[in-house]
């Protein structure tokens, strides 16, 4: 994740490519319950950052990934609305991250408990849930080093049985 961006705006065609990548991520029931808001007007970016404390990075653009909860309940049921659509939104965000790297961009994943305020400043209707915000921009050369990776805990065949691989 990038936490320090250049102030240069992100070209529209690159933002569109990122949204296309997000749209290729899975959606439970294969129904379009996920929607996106591309935010690149500096006033709206400022509004969004202002009510989203974990949006620390100075990204000049953001992609807000939302789920239409009413539609999700209708086509996917309660589990689909409350869990699967969130997992799918995470997959969409990761697609954006991978595509961004290919385009020479960086991203920062943001999620705060203040999503209702984010909905208010962006005019998002009540029936939508803000799942994740992806800050987008060109990575600053003056940025902190990547975080330390952690060794995954892996079990083999059944929980508690040791995996001897290198993972």
């Amino acid at each position, binding site marked *: 994740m990038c936490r320090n961006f250049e102030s240069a705006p992100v070209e529209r065609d690159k933002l569109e490519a990122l949204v296309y990548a997000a749209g290729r991520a899975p959606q439970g029931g294969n129904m379009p319950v996920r929607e996106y808001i591309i935010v690149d007007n500096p006033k709206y970016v400022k509004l969004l950052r*202002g009510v989203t*404390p*974990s949006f*620390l990075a100075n990204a000049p653009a953001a992609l807000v990934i939302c789920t239409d909860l009413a539609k999700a309940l209708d086509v996917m049921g309660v589990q689909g609305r409350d869990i699967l659509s969130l997992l799918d939104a995470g997959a969409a965000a990761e697609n954006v991250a991978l595509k961004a790297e290919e385009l020479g961009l960086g991203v920062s994943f943001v999620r*705060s408990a203040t999503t209702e305020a984010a909905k208010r400043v962006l005019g998002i209707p009540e029936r939508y849930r803000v799942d994740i915000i992806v800050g987008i921009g060109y990575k600053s050369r003056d940025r*902190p080093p990547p*975080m*330390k990776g952690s060794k995954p805990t892996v079990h083999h065949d059944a929980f508690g049985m040791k995996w001897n691989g290198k993972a």
Partner: protein
Amino acid sequence: MAKRKPDYDVFDLATYLVASARDCVDEPLIYGPLRMLEGVNRIIMMGKGDPRYRDDFLSKMRSRVTTDILKVMSDRDEFKKALDDLLLEFAAESRRRTVGKRRSKSN
């Protein structure tokens, strides 16, 4: 000379703090200091645009504050130590401003 518009104004800061207060209810405890340090950063940024609030010590501390903020994401022990060190810097500066460099009687 035209007065430079501050990067943050009082309303922006208040909005950030209110949003942070709500966020802190649901976030891990360690994120509280992170939010507060970001508030300090924004106060310093406000001061940069207004000579009444310009403060060389705070300006000097800003890079420490912004660098230390990011440490919470990767090494929490280091973050805690950075906070201890930062507080000592502020304590020493506070003493210097209040009583100068005089030695206290207990010393």
